[in-house]
Each structure stands twice: as C-alpha cells, then as structure tokens.
C-alpha cells in the first residue's frame, strides 16, 4: 500500500511535468493549428539555460527567470521566422519545418554544451511532507506546487483577463477574431511567449527531478506530447492537463506492477489511437 502510494505520487509528478510541456503545445495548436514539435527543443534549451544561470549565480530564482526569458525569445523567433510564413501552406509543411527546427536546435545544444549528461545539483526550497509512513520529498512538492501555480496563473489569464478573451477568440476562429479588431499576430506572439516560458520551467524541473540534462532529452517528449494533445482534445488546455496526469500515473503504475512487454513510451500512442477510434474529438475537445 505504501509502495503504491509512493508510485502514485511519482506518477502524478511525471504527469505534472508532461502537463507543463503539453500546455504550450495545446496553446499553440489552439491559436495557430500548428503541431509545434520544436517545443520540446525549447524545453531542452530551457534546462540548459537554467543550469548555466544556476552555476553563474548559485541561486534558482535567476535560473528560472533567465531560462523563461530566453525560451520566450526563442519561441518568438521560431514563430516569426518559421511558422508564420508557412501558415498558408498545407499543415504538413509547418510540421516538417518544426521537426527540422527541433533537430537543428537539439544539435546546437549538443555542439555548444557537449554530448554528455550534465547534472543539476539544486535543491528546491520546498518542505518535505511526512504523512503516515509516506514521504513527499522536496522535489516532488516543488513539482506539485509549481505546476499548480502555473495552472492557476494560466487559468486566471485565459478566463479573467481581456488578453485571455482575445486568446480564446483567436483559437475559436482566427479570421473572425482578426475581423473583430483583435491583433491576432500579437496574440500568436504572446501565446508563444507563455508556452515557451512554461516549457522552460518544465525543463528546469525535469533537470532537477532526474538530476540530468542532455541534448536529446526532448526527443521522446516531442512526440509523446503530440499524442497527449490528441487524447486531451486538440487545443483544449484542460484536456491536455488531464491527459498528461493520466499518462504520468498510468506509465508509472504500469512499470511498477504490470508486466507487459511493451515499452512505456508506446503507451501514449496506444492510448491515442484508442481515443481516435472511440472519441475522435478527444477527452475535452469539441467538434
């Protein structure tokens, strides 16, 4: 029972991290209808910038801020120079562009930082909690609290501000939103800033959680999170979060208990194909 609870807690942490990466993807898909594979490369860059600033300043807050700022900038560059000019083409064109950008950024990380695994020896200032024999470690607490904070922030932005209203309008129908006087080009930029900054947070959290950062750390999330936004419902932020949490828990429990001869990375895709066949609009999507 104790083991089960610990597995569950780890699973939720995994799911939270997936959620942080998937959020940006869902936001971008909502507004631009682009599968932003290079998002995972932004997340890798976030981890690297984070560890660099951490080593320079010796404290975590500037690491987070620096990484978020740098990734926001990177996100804008990708949006302006790759996606925006390709919007008029069929969807596979920006998709291939995105995959190429992802591989190029991954290679740049390898060339600049070296192919080795870097460690991230930081302690997050959160209290550990002991509860009837079960311990929630500092890192787990940090992952939970930061994810919750990001989600609340995002919920507030999208539902309680004018900017959120404009973002929702743009994701419903971008040309109508444009006609209504919303500066959709600015909305696209802001979406990329928010999504990329959150990816930077995810990158640093993963770096601390596993204590390792390496150039290809984005390779598996890049495609798994695509499956997650399908399961959640294309462009639906709550759906993406729920799907991420479910996947995190399912993966962890499956490794711990079931003995199926499939790697856990295939699980997301199997779930996705099941969802597509059974409820093709996704968990929270609307048609």
């Amino acid at each position, binding site marked *: 029972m104790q083991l089960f609870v610990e597995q569950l807690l780890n699973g939720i942490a995994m799911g939270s991290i997936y959620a942080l990466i998937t959020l940006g993807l869902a936001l971008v898909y909502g507004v631009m209808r682009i599968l932003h594979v290079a998002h995972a490369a932004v997340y890798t860059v976030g981890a690297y910038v984070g560890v660099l600033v951490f080593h320079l300043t010796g404290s975590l807050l500037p690491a987070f801020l620096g990484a978020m700022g740098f990734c926001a900038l990177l996100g804008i560059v990708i949006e302006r120079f790759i996606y925006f000019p*390709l919007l008029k083409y069929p969807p596979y064109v920006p998709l291939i562009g995105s995959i190429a950008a992802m591989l190029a950024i991954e290679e740049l990380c390898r060339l600049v930082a070296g192919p080795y695994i870097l460690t991230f020896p930081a302690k997050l200032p959160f209290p550990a909690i002991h509860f009837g024999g079960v311990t929630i470690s500092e890192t787990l607490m940090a992952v939970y609290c930061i994810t919750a904070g990001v989600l609340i922030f995002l919920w507030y932005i999208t539902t309680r501000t004018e900017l959120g209203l404009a973002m929702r309008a743009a994701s419903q129908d971008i040309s109508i939103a444009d006609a209504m006087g919303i500066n959709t080009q600015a909305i696209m930029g802001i979406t990329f800033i928010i999504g990329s900054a959150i990816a930077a947070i995810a990158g640093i959290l993963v770096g601390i959680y596993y204590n390792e950062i390496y150039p290809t750390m984005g390779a598996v999330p890049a*495609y798994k999170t695509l499956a997650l936004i399908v399961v959640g419902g294309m462009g639906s932020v709550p759906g993406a979060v729920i799907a991420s949490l479910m996947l995190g828990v399912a993966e962890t429990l499956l490794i711990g208990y079931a003995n199926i*001869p499939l790697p856990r*990375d*295939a699980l997301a*895709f*199997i779930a996705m*194909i099941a969802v597509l066949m059974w409820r093709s609009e996704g968990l929270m999507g609307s048609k």
Partner: protein
Amino acid sequence: MSSYVITIATLIVIYAIVVLGLNVIVGFAGQISLGHAAFFGIGAYASAILTTKAGLSFWMALPFVILISGLIGLLLGLPSLRVRDDFLAITTIGINFIVEAVFLYIPFFGGALGIGGIPKIILFGVKLKGGAFFSLCLMFLGVVLLVCWWFTRSWGGLACFALRENEEAASSMGISPMRFKLLAFVLGTAMAGLGGALYAHYMRFISATDFSFPLSITFLGMIVLGGMGTLWGPVLGALLLGILPELFRPLVNYRILFYTVILLLMIRFQPSGLLGETSLARKVFSFRFLGART
C-alpha cells in the same frame, strides 16, 4: 567503382524505392504519413523471417513480403479514413513507435538482438554482392518508377489527385475516398516493403532501431526536398539526402546540423521542393519530361 561508392549508391537506390512509395501516399493521395519507416521495417523483418526461419529463398519470399507489407499498410491506412491532416500525422508517428516497440520487445522478432544471418540473394546460381546487387536494386527501382508512372496515368491515380485537391468535391463526384486512399496506402507500403526486403538482404543483419522514427522524417525530407507529387522528385531527394551526409563527412561534428538547416531552409523558402510545381527549377527550365504532377 570502389566498394564505398557502391555501398552508398545501393542504399540510395533502396531509399529511392521506399520514398517513391511514400510519394504515392503523400504526394499523390495527399495523406500525410510520418511512419513510413515502419513499413520499410515490416518488409525487412518479413523477408528476414521468411528466409531465415521458414527457409524460403529471397525470390520465393518476395511476393509474400510485398503482400504482407501491403496488407498491414491496408490495416494501418484505415485511420486515414477517420482522421485527417494533423491527426493523421500524429497517428502515423504513433504507428512508427508502436511497430518499433513490437520488433524490439517480442522475442519472435529477435528482440533487442535483431535478426542476423540473412542469406544473400541468389540469382541464376550466383550470390549477388557489390555491383551485381546494385544493378538488381536499380532494376527494381526501374520497375517501381514504371508502376508510379503508370499510376499517375491511371484512373486510380487521377482519383487520388482529385481527393488530394479537395476531398469533398471529389467524393461528391462519385470518387470513393475509402477505396482510393486505401489503394494509395497499399501501393505505397508495398513499395516500402520491397525496399525493406532489399535492405535486409543487403545488410544481412537488421534490428528494430534501424527503422525508428527519425528515418521516417528522413524519408519525408527526401520527398520534400525533391518535390512532392512529382515522378522524379523523390529519386532526386533520395540522391541528394543520400550524398549530402557523405559530402559533409569531413565536418563530421556539424553534419546533422547542416542537414537539418538545409531541410529547414528548403521548407521555408521552397516548400514544393526542387522539382515541385512552383519551384525555382521548374520556373527557370520548365522541364516537360520531369514530371507527372497532373
């Protein structure tokens, strides 16, 4: 020719066969597929198992290999009837990951060790290697090109072009999306299977990681570079993306970076490819013999 050149050339021809198959699905029928390496792998594994475990010769196994690849292509083409564009792209990525996982984790397929000891192809009592094997691949490439050319001239091909341009309009004219999409998938995956069989008997050892997702991207990159939906574009793409890494060999550390940056610049400034409809090459020369983008 040195054996180094022959090895590169043989692989390029095999890739050209596979990429022509992908072109039928993506270029002709307009169905995005990011899991083509899976079918390449299915062909390779089918041929490897039939020749090593069932004891068939390459030539006996080949019809079964093409049949198996086509049938699995039919099965996995079914999602394309339900989902479009982005969904289909992600689904095919998923198929690639799942197929690779099946090869890797099920002992029948050799697991992590892969399958070794695949026999050489014997033709007229001679074991083919080097230049002879290359000629055989070239012959198969010719056959595949002929099939593609014939397809663009056939009703099936025309129906696929119509579906690619506008599915609603085409189906209201009485073209069955199901029939022709599946036709394109079967044809395309069967070609990938043929390429896979050649690959298996050339390498004589295969493992699951040979057919992982990055290879699918390379295949798609080849048709994007060459020109999607044209007859010779995929061959040109396979040739260029096959040679480029060799040219960059002195810069071994920067190879992948160059490669991806070229792909990125290409998709950014010439999304229809070198031989595509609106490409620079076509505007300058307007080669009539180059293409079949009707």
